[in-house]
């Protein structure tokens, strides 16, 4: 057999996709060297922009033939480095697969391509009486394909569940380049729940090329309120009280004083700047029962020493409140040049304890830490503020982050509620899981990703891969 001449991979990819949908100049690739996890950077050798599952399959097959690693990417909003091309290779950018293929209200599903931005779907659904429930804060940018990879959450997941609870089926291109449909518009596919396994697989079990999502009827009514508390403890006790009373709000978010100041400066909502914490609480459901539910929540807040409970008077005020919450991260720019967001989870009853610990850890490392998070789920997002121009600050941020996450584990929680392990939290995996657990996880990955070329170095710690603590930023994160 005559040896095949060494063929340039980019040239072959151009033959598959045409000249415009393949980038390999370093200047073109710089934008793909990191996602929203900015501490580590890896540049792909080439980035491709397929428009169909067949093209994705052809790319994957080519990568397999060449033994080149490949990684899918959506909008690049991963906070855990989920989209980083560790070890280079081909980055398969799915943002040009952005059609909403079908909306079926009678059977309550929609079919979307992976590059459809989360908010586009709800825009399309406006006026139908239905919506797509998972609402990560980045929903204006992040793609539903990426949401599937991370099993993304959001404020309203407290009542409505996370992404996996709303995905009925996926079409994937397997690691070997086969197109396979798992699940679909109809419930109850026989056998193990592969859909639920692939969703949250962080792109290591297949590349999602089509998604059947569940549509949820819009609630008939909604009541949004703000509980203002003198102390963080009181606020967390109120959260525990609300859940303990058997009320499941649609959303229950907490912002502490640190973030309030920034938000107030940005949006001038009139928050009292001396309050230690506020709770943004929303109840929804049948109009006829809502006032009673709202009053009950307000009563629990007052029993827990709320200084004041404000009700959003109308849809406009409600939107403004949510704007504050969803754009809180944007307001952080007013506080410091850089920040690092963590994503720990604790049992809800441990919230008062963990927030005290976070404060202590901040003091220990001389770092300012502010909190804005999904309190009802126990899903924390402590934000560690820093300025990378100051020597040693990144190291302190990483050390404090590690300590906070370890504290979450001590409380019986998790190191990630919705952002994923990605690259960032690899070194926590063996603290959460035994060698046997990780061995069985590796077996699952090997079953669906036998060559290991798909998204290498993610989710599972392997020899050669490094976690957050080992990372030495090679250059400055550009925030």
């Amino acid at each position, binding site marked *: 057999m005559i040896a095949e001449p060494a063929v340039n991979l980019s040239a072959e990819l151009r033959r598959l996709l045409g000249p415009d949908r393949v980038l390999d100049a370093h200047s073109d690739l710089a934008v793909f060297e990191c996602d929203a996890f900015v501490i580590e950077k890896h540049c792909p050798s080439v980035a491709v922009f397929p428009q169909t599952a067949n093209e994705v399959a052809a790319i994957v097959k080519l990568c397999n033939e060449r033994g080149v690693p490949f990684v899918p990417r959506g909008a690049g909003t991963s906070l855990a480095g989920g989209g980083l091309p560790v070890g280079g290779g081909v980055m398969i950018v799915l943002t040009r697969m952005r059609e909403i293929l079908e909306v*079926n*209200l*009678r*059977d*309550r599903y929609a079919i979307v391509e992976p590059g459809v931005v989360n908010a586009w779907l709800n825009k399309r659904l406006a006026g139908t009486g239905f919506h797509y429930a998972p609402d990560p804060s980045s929903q204006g940018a992040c793609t539903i394909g990426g949401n599937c990879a*991370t*099993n993304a959450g959001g404020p309203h997941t407290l009542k409505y*569940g*996370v992404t*996996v*609870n709303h995905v009925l089926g996926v079409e994937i291109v397997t690691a070997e380049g086969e197109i*396979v*449909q798992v699940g*679909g*518009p*109809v*419930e*109850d596919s*026989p*056998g*193990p*729940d592969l*859909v*639920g*396994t692939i969703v*949250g*697989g962080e792109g290591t079990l297949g590349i999602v090329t089509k998604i059947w999502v569940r549509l949820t009827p*819009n*609630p008939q009514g909604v009541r949004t309120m703000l509980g203002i508390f003198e102390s963080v403890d009181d606020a967390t006790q109120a959260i525990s009280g609300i859940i303990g009373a*058997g009320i*499941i709000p649609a959303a229950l978010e907490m912002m502490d004083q640190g973030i309030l100041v920034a938000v107030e400066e940005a949006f001038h909502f009139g928050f009292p700047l001396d309050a230690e914490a506020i709770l943004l609480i929303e109840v929804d459901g*049948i109009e006829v*029962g809502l006032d009673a539910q709202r009053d009950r929540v307000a009563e629990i807040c007052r029993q827990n020493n709320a200084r004041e409970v404000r009700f959003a008077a109308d849809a406009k005020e409600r939107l403004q409140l949510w704007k504050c919450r969803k754009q809180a991260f944007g307001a952080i720019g007013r506080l410091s040049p850089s920040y690092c967001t963590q994503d720990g*989870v*604790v*049992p*809800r*009853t441990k919230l008062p304890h963990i927030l005290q610990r976070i404060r202590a850890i901040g003091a220990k490392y001389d770092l300012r830490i502010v909190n804005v998070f999904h309190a009802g*789920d*126990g899903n924390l997002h402590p934000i560690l503020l820093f300025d990378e121009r100051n020597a040693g600050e990144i190291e302190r941020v990483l050390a404090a982050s590690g300590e906070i996450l370890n504290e979450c584990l001590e409380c019986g*929680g*998790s*190191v*990630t*509620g919705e952002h*994923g*392990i990605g690259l960032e939290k690899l070194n926590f*995996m063996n603290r*959460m*899981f035994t060698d046997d*657990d990780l061995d*069985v*996880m590796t*077996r*699952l*990955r090997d*079953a*669906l990703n036998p060559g290991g070329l798909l998204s290498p170095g993610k*989710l*599972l710690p392997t020899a050669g891969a490094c976690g957050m603590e080992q990372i030495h930023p090679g250059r400055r994160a550009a925030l």
Partner: protein
Amino acid sequence: MATVTTSQTPDLASSPSPVEVAESIRAAYDASRAVYPVGGGTALNYGNSPTQPGEQLDLTGLNRIVDYTPRDMTILVEAGVRMTDLAAALAAEGQHLPIDVPRASEATLGGVVATNWSGPRRYGHGTIRDYVIGIHAVDGRGVAFKGGGRVVKNVAGYDFCKLLTGSLGTLGVITQLALKVKPLPESTGTVVAACADVATAGILLDRLATLPVPPVAIDYLLGPNWQVPTTTRSRQAEIGPQTPHLVIRFEGTETETAWLADQIQTELQQAGGMSVALLAPIDAAALWKRQIEFADRGAGDAPENSPMVIKVAVPPSAVTKLVAQLVAFDPDCSIQAHAASGIVIARFAKFGHSDITPVLVGKLRPAAAKLGGSLVVISGTLDGLTPHLIWGGRTDAIVLMENIKRKFDPRNILNPGRFVY
């Protein structure tokens, strides 16, 4: 057919621990001997019969409630806990796991997860996959492993909670489960309506599907199993064999259910429903029990040997058409459709071997598959059904499952033959 010895090792049955389960599977792995995990034994007819000699692994001794923090709304239990025991523990704190399971005093939680069992309230409350937040299991090498944890939101590592849901004991033997639970509703209500014909039922179901406030269950009932003795004077007596009935269950506060009762009755009347009525609580409870038990035993108290019980999954909009097909084949079949979820359970009165090829394989399964759905045999008295007849053909997705099976159970000792592999 291969025989199965049901020799539970005494100490394993009396006081097993997850460690002992792992040891016993490890021993079976070393000997390449099949292991058949059994909980309450209520779903042993589901899927194929065992294909290899082996041992039954009784998990009902794993019945401890390990930890329950009501204010977190999570509970950690061993997999052999009976569903009624679990329900009682939760109810004491005003909470519940809203998964409807027949013979709940026997059925175990692990079995419910392994079979992915569900009932009428799946429409409003989802299925068991939506509640499992942590899982411990033992793979086919005797290796104990876990996934998830104790918190309601967690994306660390692969989600074994999902992978083992519906895996029928073929990928791992479940030993412990962490669940998120819900507050018990203050009040429930049930509205029934008769439909002149299948077409009317379709119109009513369309109407219910777009209600801004969904009920928790919309069942569509038809056939002799739903007939009750004529001496019963309650409203329930009118659910007869010939007339399709819709049974709508809703939950909420007293205020909410009162509003929903009015609203749903009005909707149904406007859409052409007949004899629309709110059931008295005692009648609703009696009917509800039968709605939960139907898939397992038909009419009610005594087991009823239908030759063929199937579950067909189709888009909700196709339910009435499918029901018409089923009735055309067997006018005496009894049907319960969780209509808004597209799940149709049919208990045939007559179904012989000669019907398998033309009806099951030739007609019903292709009809479901064409709509993106599936058909599985839940139970029956016909022997000699092959895996393909019970579960359907080999799809690309099943090829992926086989790849996983080989990694989790390399010697094929976990429930061999129960599923398609």
